[in-house]
């Protein structure tokens, strides 16, 4: 896999505040990398340094295995915080500037505007756009040069639920084309749904890094319920595979031992003449994991 980005000991201080502290990252081709963290954790500052608008206090980074930065940036589609365009120019006129800077052809302008559903308003001035339209135009600008790498900082900020769903779908679609995406967000299910890898930042420190799938595995917690909860409670006490049984909201929550599975639970109870009306194997969510990581490092 090709090396897209390598970050070594990247550090930024604003006066006494440590915005980013000795950050190391490695992003390879095809990853959809989630940068998580509460507000003010250093996500945008990190991306700002990687895009040369914030000067690092120390440390280094290299794009595409050491390509010059200006050239690299022309091959990166990036959205950093709020959408920035000339308010007195239309969408098309603004995108012509982007195309010129990125040395890209202007022939894709209509295509990307279509992709973000702005074709009908393409000749209106940017200043007359709604926040959602502005956000979508910045995504169009990021896609314009058909870049192999996208950096998206809170791409669904200010969008309505439908817009968020559309952007999420768009990101998954782009990721399937084999593009590499770095996604900074505090919306966790957004990251959980599209990212392959993620890291957690807090106060400029990297607390955790790893593949998203590793933490979304099934847990050993099973929730069961039956019409006759009383006999269920009595019967389950004899099930040797459960290490802990707890009543929760009209169900029973079982912690299963190493060898037991939800199938075993079901079979055991069926043999005892109890038919379950509910059997749910719980999976971890990124949100739980994220909060746990923050708690452990609080």
């Amino acid at each position, binding site marked *: 896999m090709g090396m897209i980005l390598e970050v070594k000991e990247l550090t930024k201080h604003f006066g006494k505040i440590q915005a980013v502290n000795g950050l190391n990252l490695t992003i390879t081709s095809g990853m959809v990398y989630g940068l998580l963290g509460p507000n003010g954790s250093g996500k945008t500052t990190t991306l700002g340094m990687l*895009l040369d608008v*914030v000067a690092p206090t120390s440390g280094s980074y290299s794009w595409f295995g050491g390509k010059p930065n200006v050239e690299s940036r022309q091959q990166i589609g990036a959205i950093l915080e709020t959408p920035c*365009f000339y308010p007195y*120019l239309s969408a098309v006129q603004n995108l012509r500037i982007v195309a010129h*800077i*990125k040395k890209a052809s202007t022939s894709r302008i209509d295509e990307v505007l279509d992709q973000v559903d702005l074709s009908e308003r393409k000749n209106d001035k940017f200043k007359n756009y709604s926040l959602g339209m502005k956000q979508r135009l910045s995504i169009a600008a990021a896609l314009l040069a058909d870049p192999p790498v996208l950096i998206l900082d809170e791409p669904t900020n200010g969008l309505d639920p439908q817009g968020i769903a559309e952007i999420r779908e768009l990101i998954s679609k782009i990721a399937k084309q084999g593009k590499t995406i770095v996604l900074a967000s505090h919306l966790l299910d957004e990251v959980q749904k599209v990212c392959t890898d993620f890291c957690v930042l807090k106060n400029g420190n990297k607390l955790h890094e790893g593949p998203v799938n590793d933490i979304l595995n099934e847990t050993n917690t099973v929730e069961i319920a039956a019409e006759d909860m009383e006999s269920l409670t009595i019967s389950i006490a004899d099930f040797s595979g459960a290490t802990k049984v707890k009543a929760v909201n009209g169900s029973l929550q079982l912690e299963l031992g190493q060898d037991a599975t939800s199938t075993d639970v079901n079979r055991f109870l069926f043999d005892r003449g109890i038919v379950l009306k509910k059997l749910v194997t719980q999976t971890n969510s990124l949100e739980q994991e994220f909060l746990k990581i923050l708690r452990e490092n609080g």
Partner: protein
Amino acid sequence: MVRAFQLEWLKLRNYRVFWILVAMYLVALFFATSSLMFFLNWLKSVGADLDGIDPTIIPIYDFPDIWQNTTYLASFLKVLLGFIVIISVNNDLSYNMLRQNVIDGISKREFIISKMALIMFLAAVSSGFVFLAGLINGSIYSHTGGMSQMFNEIEFIFGYFYDIVVYCTLAFLVALLIKKSGFAIISLFLYTIMFEPILVAMLENAEYFDGTIWQAIAPFFPISAINDLIHIPFGRYVFQEITDYIPLSALAISTVWLAIYISAIYYRLAKRDLK
């Protein structure tokens, strides 16, 4: 340079404010370069008496004097070009577009080059206009003619071009240092037409400064230096000695200022985080 200018062109091509300002500037330039005969006729009509000389016979549009006469007058309007530069730079800063441009893939150096390209463009348009106006007015009113007379002293057009380039580079720097465009424009305007000229006039002429170092440094002030490129020419019509060439000292001092402006712009942008 071409690529840098194209970037600037895309930003300004559909920016109405820019074209209105350019149009207003050109109208003002037209009056500054081409209305002198009307002015002299008006002087005559109100009965101005210049030691018994009819004002309309003053050969103000004669080749080659016309070049210094018109560039001297046109040079007063360079402050308007400074405003255009401030507005253009300020747009990129206040809308966070310099940051966005850098993210999209230019270097800060390219940004500086693109603004310098704009400055050169404005200076070239203005110089071209003054040159054409000189040719036309000269061919209508000049008592002298012939190629050698016509293009003698044409160096004033180049001096004029340089004057604008240096001044607009100062405006570029001011726009970077003062982020509110209105404040930047008023500061530049007052400094150019009042604060420095008055200060320099005091240093040069007040008895108090006679023979002091202050008097000696007066020509080194930034506006004074570029204004000295083209000296006031009208003394020749009342038989005074005038500086009818571009003084090398003014050229040298202006060039040093230009280098200082560009270095300051570069330093300012290189060290600043684009938040």
